[in-house]
C-alpha cells in the first residue's frame, strides 16, 4: 500500500538569477521519519528547506504538504515549523513568551492558564523547566537551542524543519543534542527534516539521508545503504571516509573504506584469504582512541589511509612513521564506482 508522503517535491526547480539552487528535484518525506538532507554549502539543501517552510516559492514544480499543494500558500499558513540556524529567538520577549508565540497567533487565542500549562510542558520536554522568565541573551547557546526547539514543537507541526541547528554548538554539546533530538523525535512521532553539512550528524541521527550536490539529489537511503552501497564516488567520499584507486574502466574508481583494510608487518602475517596485498611505507599515524589511522604510500597505488582498530593491534602491531608494512583487503571490501 502506498502511504502518502508528508512533504512531497514534484520536479521542483529554484533559480536565483543565473544560479540554479535546486534542479528538478523529486522527494517524498515519509510521515514519522527522521530525514536528513546532507550536502556541502551551496548544494541547495537550505533552499529546499525554505521552500518547505514557505520562505521561498519554487521557480517551477510543486511542493505539497500532507497532500495539499502549497503553491502560493504563505509561511504563516503552513503546518510546519522551523528551528533556525542561529535560533532567531525574539530578543524582546522572555523564554515563556517566545515559546508560546505560535499558540498566541491562533484565533481564538488560548486562555492564559492554558498557555502557561503548554509552555511549562514544552520547557519540561527540552529540560528547561523554571526558565520561563529568562531572556534569550541570558541563555547559553545550548539553552537557546532548546528554547528554539520548544517554540517550534509546542505547535505540534506536521514536520519540524531543522536548519543546521547544531552548527553553532561545541562538539560535546552537539553530541548531547543529537541524542536529545533523536529521543524527542521518537517520543513525539513528529517528522523531523534536518539540513546539515555534517555527515557524521546525518548518519548518526537519521532514518534516511538524502545526499545533494549542485542542486540535485544524488542518492536517498538509510545511513547504512549510503555507506555500504554508495551509487557513485561522490556519495562514497561524502559519507564516511573512502580510499579511491584507479578503476578498471574510464570514469570508474575502486573504492575501499579505510576500516576494511587490513594492516600487518609483512604480507605473511596478514589474515588469510585477502583478494589483494601490497607493501607500503607508513607516512603518518594519528591516534584516535578506538582506532589508529595510518596514512600509507604504495609505489603505484599512491597514498591512502588505513584504520587499524585498537582491539586487533596485538595481532597487527603498531607502526611508526617510516616503517614498512603490508596492507590488504577482502574482495567484498572493494567496490567499483562511477566518478561524476
Amino acid at each position, binding site marked *: 500500500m502506498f502511504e502518502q508522503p508528508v512533504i512531497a517535491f514534484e520536479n521542483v526547480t529554484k533559480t536565483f538569477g543565473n544560479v540554479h539552487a535546486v534542479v528538478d528535484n523529486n522527494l517524498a518525506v515519509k510521515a514519522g521519519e527522521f530525514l536528513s538532507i546532507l550536502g556541502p554549502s551551496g548544494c541547495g539543501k537550505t533552499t529546499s528547506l525554505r521552500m518547505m517552510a514557505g520562505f521561498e516559492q519554487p521557480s517551477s514544480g510543486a511542493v505539497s504538504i500532507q497532500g495539499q499543494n502549497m503553491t502560493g500558500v504563505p509561511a*504563516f*499558513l503552513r503546518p510546519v515549523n522551523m528551528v533556525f540556524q542561529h535560533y*532567531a529567538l*525574539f530578543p*524582546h520577549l522572555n523564554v515563556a513568551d517566545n515559546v508560546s508565540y505560535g499558540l498566541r497567533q491562533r484565533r481564538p487565542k488560548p486562555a492564559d492558564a492554558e498557555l502557561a500549562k503548554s509552555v511549562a510542558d514544552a520547557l519540561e520536554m527540552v529540560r528547561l523547566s523554571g526558565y520561563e522568565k529568562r531572556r534569550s541573551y541570558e541563555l547559553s547557546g545550548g539553552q537557546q537551542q532548546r528554547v528554539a526547539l520548544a517554540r517550534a514543537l509546542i505547535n505540534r507541526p506536521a514536520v519540524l524543519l531543522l536548519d543546521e541547528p547544531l552548527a553553532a554548538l561545541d562538539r560535546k554539546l552537539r553530541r548531547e543534542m543529537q541524542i536529545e533530538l533523536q529521543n524527542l523525535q521518537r517520543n513525539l512521532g513528529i517528522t523531523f527534516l534536518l539540513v546539515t553539512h555534517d555527515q557524521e550528524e546525518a548518519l548518526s541521527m537519521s532514518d534516511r539521508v538524502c545526499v545533494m550536490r549542485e542542486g540535485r539529489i544524488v542518492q536517498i537511503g538509510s545511513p547504512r545503504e549510503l555507506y555500504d552501497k554508495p551509487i557513485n564516488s561522490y556519495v562514497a567520499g561524502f559519507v564516511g571516509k573512502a580510499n579511491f584507486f584507479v578503476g578498471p574502466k574510464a570514469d570508474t574508481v575502486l573504492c575501499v573504506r579505510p576500516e576494511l583494510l587490513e594492516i600487518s608487518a609483512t604480507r605473511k602475517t596478514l589474515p588469510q584469504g585477502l583478494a589483494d596485498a601490497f607493501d607500503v611505507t607508513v607516512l603518518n599515524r594519528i591516534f584516535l582512541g578506538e582506532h589508529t589511522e595510518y596514512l600509507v604510500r604504495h609505489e603505484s597505488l599512491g597514498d591512502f589511509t588505513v584504520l587499524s582498530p585498537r582491539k586487533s593491534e596485538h595481532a597487527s602491531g603498531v607502526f611508526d612513521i617510516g616503517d614498512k608494512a603490508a596492507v590488504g583487503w577482502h574482495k567484498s571490501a572493494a567496490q567499483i564506482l562511477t566518478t561524476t
Partner: protein
Amino acid sequence: MNDAKHSRTLTALLLAPAGVFFVFLLVLPLLVMLVYSFGVRAPEGGYQAAFTFDNYLNLPARGKAFTNTLLLAPLATALTVLFAYPMAYFLAVKVSPRWRNAMLVLVVAPFWTSQLLRYYAWMMILGSKGIPSWLEWIGIADVRLLNTPYAVLIGAVYGFLPLMVPPIFVSLEKLDKRLLEASADLGSKPWQSFLQITLPLSLPGVATGSMLVFILLMGDYILPQFLGGGKVYFIGNALVDLFLQSRNWPFGAAVSIALVIIMFVTMYFYMRFVLGKTDQRRVAMV
C-alpha cells in the same frame, strides 16, 4: 601593570576635551543660572545679588509660554514620529539597498539650507497668498494658518523630520529579518508580525529620535517666532524677551531652570515608559 596605568592615562586624555567642554559650557553656565535665579533685577537691568524665591513664585506670569510649549512640543514630536516612521520603514525595508543611501541623503537634504530660509518659505506657503488662497479657490474661505498653533505644528514636523527619520531607520535596518521569518513560521500574519516584532524592536530608534526632537522643540524660539507670529508663544520666546528686551535676568534664569527641570522629568518618564516596557535599555544606550 604598566599597561593598565598607560591605558588609564590614555582614557583620561581622550575624555579631557569632552570633560572640559561639559564643565565650562554646561555645568558652569547652569550653576550661574541657578545663582542668578535667586537674585533680583538691577535697576538698569541685568542681575543684582540677592536671595529670594520671588522669581520662582512669579513663574505663573509666563504660564501661557509654559502651557504652549508643554502642549505643542509633545504633540509636534508625536506627529513627527507618525510621519517619520513610515518613511524610515519604507527606506529600511522596501527600498533596494542601491537607492537607500541616496534617498536617505534626500531626507536630510533640507538641513543644507538655512533654517530661516525654510521658515520664510513656510510663511509664504501658509500665509494668506499660499494655501488659504488655494482653499478659497475651491470654495473653502477664511482659513487662517499662519500665526496659529497649526502653523507651528506643520513647521515642526517639516523641520524635525530629518532628525527623526535616521534613528528610526537605523533601528529598522539592523532588525534581523530572520525574526520576521520566525514569526511568520509560527503562524503570524505580516501585519501581526509588524506589531509584535518590528514595532517593539524599533522603539529604541523612536525613543532616540523623539528625544532629539522634543528637546530641540522645548527650547525652540525661531519656529514659534516665525510661524506663530508671536501669538503662539514658547518658553524660548519668553527667555528672549526676558534676557534681551526687559533685561530681567533673574526672572529669565528662573524660567530657564524651570525648563531644564521639566525637560529632565519628562525625558525620564518617557524613556522609562518606552524602554521599560520592552526592557531594551541596553539596546537604547548604544
